[in-house]
C-alpha cells in the first residue's frame, strides 16, 4: 500500500542540504535503496544461469513444443503456456466488467458512509492466503461447479464448442474463476482510485449540461480514467499469470492441451510447483527456464502497469493505493 505524501517545501530541502554532510549515512541509505534494483537483476541472472543448460541442450524449441513427457526427454511447455493464457483470459474477462462496476459503485454510487468499509471488505479478498483459496476452491467450489455451474453453462453455451467433455469440477474453468476472485481486489482498488481522481470540474461541467448520472460516469469519468484503468487491468493480468498454489490445487494438473474449458490443464506456475520435487537434470533446467520466462513476463507486465498508474498519479491529485 502506498500513499502519496506531501512533498516538503523547497526551503526545507535547502536546509537539509546545508546540514553537516554525513557520508556514511547517505551511503547506507543508498545501499538500502539500491537493494531493490540489485534484487531484480539478481533474480534474472540467477534464473538465467540455471536455465542456460536447458537452452544449450534443447535449443529454444521446447518453449513451443507441445509434448511434455519428462520420462522420454520431451519437454514441450506449450500446453502449460496455453493453460496460463486461458486461465488468465477467463479471470480477466470476468474481473474487468465486474471490477469496473464495483469500482464505480465504490467511488461514486454507494452510500457515502459505506464506501470506506466496503472498499476495505473488497480489498481483504487480497489478504486471504492463496493456499486457502486453493483449498476452498477444491473442496467447496469444485463440487458446486460439477453439479450446478458446469451443467448450466453447458446447456446455455454448449454451442460454442468450448464446454465439451464431462462435468468434473476441477479444470480450466474453475481455475479461471478462482483467479478472477483473487485478482478482483487488485482491479477494484486501483480502478476506484483512478476513477475518483478524475477532476471535479469536468464532472460538474457534464452535470451542468444536463447529463444523467450514468452519462457522467460513462462519458466523462471512465474516459478520463482510461490510462489508469489500463494499469489496473495490466496489474490484474500480471497477478493472474503468476498465481501458483491456488491454481495448482484446482486445475487438475494435466500435461495435455485442454480440449475443453472443463478439462484438466496446467499452467506454467502449476507445472513448476507440481513437478519440482521429482525433477532433476534437464527437467530441472527446463523448469528454471519456464520460471525465467514467467519472471521476465512478470517484470514486463508490472513495469507497464506502473507506468500507466503512475501517469494518472502524476496528473490526478488522488493517492493511488496498490494492494
Amino acid at each position, binding site marked *: 500500500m502506498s500513499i502519496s505524501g506531501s512533498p516538503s517545501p523547497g526551503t526545507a530541502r535547502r536546509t537539509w542540504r546545508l546540514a553537516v554532510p554525513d557520508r556514511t*549515512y547517505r551511503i547506507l541509505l543508498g545501499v538500502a*535503496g539500491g537493494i531493490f534494483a540489485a534484487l531484480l537483476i539478481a533474480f534474472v541472472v540467477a534464473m538465467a544461469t540455471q536455465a542456460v543448460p536447458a537452452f544449450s541442450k534443447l535449443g529454444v524449441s521446447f518453449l513451443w513444443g507441445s509434448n511434455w513427457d519428462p520420462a522420454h526427454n520431451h519437454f514441450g511447455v506449450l500446453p502449460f503456456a496455453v493453460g496460463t493464457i486461458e486461465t488468465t483470459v477467463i479471470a480477466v474477462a470476468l474481473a474487468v466488467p465486474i471490477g469496473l462496476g464495483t469500482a464505480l459503485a465504490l467511488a461514486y454510487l454507494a452510500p457515502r458512509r459505506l464506501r470506506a468499509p466496503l472498499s476495505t471488505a473488497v480489498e481483504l479478498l487480497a489478504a486471504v492466503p492463496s493456499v486457502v483459496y486453493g483449498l476452498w476452491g477444491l473442496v467447496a467450489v469444485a463440487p458446486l461447479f460439477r453439479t450446478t455451474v458446469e451443467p448450466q453453462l453447458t446447456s446455455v453455451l454448449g454451442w460454442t464448442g468450448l464446454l465439451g467433455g464431462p462435468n468434473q469440477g476441477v479444470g480450466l474453468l474453475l481455475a479461471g474463476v478462482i483467479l478472477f476472485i483473487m485478482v478482483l481486489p487488485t482491479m477494484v482498488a486501483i480502478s476506484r482510485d483512478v476513477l475518483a481522481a478524475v477532476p471535479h470540474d469536468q464532472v460538474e461541467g457534464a452535470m451542468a449540461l444536463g447529463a444523467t448520472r450514468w452519462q457522467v460516469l460513462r462519458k466523462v469519468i471512465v474516459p478520463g480514467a482510461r490510462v489508469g484503468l489500463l494499469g489496473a487491468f495490466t496489474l490484474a493480468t500480471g497477478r493472474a499469470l503468476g498465481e501458483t498454489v491456488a491454481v495448482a490445487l484446482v486445475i487438475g494438473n494435466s500435461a495435455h492441451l485442454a480440449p475443453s474449458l472443463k478439462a484438466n490443464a496446467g499452467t506454467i506456475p502449476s507445472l513448476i510447483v507440481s513437478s519440482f520435487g521429482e525433477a532433476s537434470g534437464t527437467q530441472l533446467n527446463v523448469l528454471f527456464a519456464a520460471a525465467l520466462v514467467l519472471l521476465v513476463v512478470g517484470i514486463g507486465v508490472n513495469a507497464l502497469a506502473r507506468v500507466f498508474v503512475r501517469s494518472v498519479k502524476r496528473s490526478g491529485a488522488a493517492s493511488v493505493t496498490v494492494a
Partner: protein
Amino acid sequence: MSTISFDSSLDPILSRRAAIQKIAASSIARRKVYSKVAISVCLLCLVVALIPLVAIITYVAAKGIPAWNADFFTQVTKPEGIPNGGVWNAIVGSLIIDGIAVAASVPFGILGGLFLAESDGPAAAAVRFSADILTGVPSITIGIFGYIVWVKTVGSYSGFAGAFAIAIIMLPVIMRAAETAIRGVPVTLREAGLSLGARRSTVARRVVLPAALPGLLTGVLLAVARGAGETAPLLFTIFGNQFFQANPTKAMEALPQAIYTYSSQPYNDLIQIAWGAALLLMVVILVLNVGSRLMAARLRRERR
C-alpha cells in the same frame, strides 16, 4: 450604447441551443431510466464482489472450527490413520520463519524508506519503480530465487532459506509504508533538529524515526500479513517437515506449507487439519491486515 436584441430565431447560436434543449428534454425520460438501470448493475457488481469474501470466511470457519482442539495446537502433524495430529510444528515454524524474515527486512525497509523520503531525484524514482515491480513479480519466482541462491548454495532446505524468500516479499511493503510514515513527520521537527547542529543521521535516528514509529509499526504489521500467507516461496525453500523442528538451519514446517501438503491428500483427517490450519492462518492474517488499516486510518485522522 445601443441595446442588443435577443431574437433566438435570428442568432444561429441561440437557435442551435434551443434545438439542443429540445432534444435533451425529449430524451431525458429515456436517459434517466437508462441511468437507473446502469447504476443498479454497478451496485449489483459490488454485491457480487462481496459474496466471495463472505463465502470463504464462513466456509473456512465452519470447516476449521471443528478441527480446533487441544491436540491441534499442541501436537505435531501425524501421518494418515494416527489420531490426535496437530500443527504445533507448523505454528512454531511459521513464527520462527516469519520472525527471522521481519528481523531481516525491517532494517533495510526502513533505511530504504528514509532514502525515498529524503530524495526526489531519478535514483529515488528508480528505487520506487523496482520496489513496485518486486511487489508484482510472481511469488513462485521469489521461491525459486531462494532455492537457487540459498538452498543450492548451502546444500539443504532450511528455515533460513524460507525466511530469506519471505523477507524479499516483505521488504517492499515495509519500505513503502516507511516512506509514507517518514514523509508524514512535520518538516519543522527536522528543521529544529538540524538547527541545533545535529547530523542528518542523528536527526533521523532521534527525531524522525521516533516520530514515525506508529506508521512504521503499521507497515510491519502489513508486511507480516503479506508474508505469513505466502505459500509458493516456502515450497521451494523449507521443504516441509512433519516433525518438530525449531532449528532454522534445518528443513521446517510452516502453516501455508502444511495446508498445501494436506489439502492435496485424499485422507479426510489430514484435510480436516488443513482446514483448521487454513482458519488459523486466515484469522491471523485478516486481524493483522484490519489492525494495520485501522492504525493507519487513525494516524491520518490525528495528522489532520
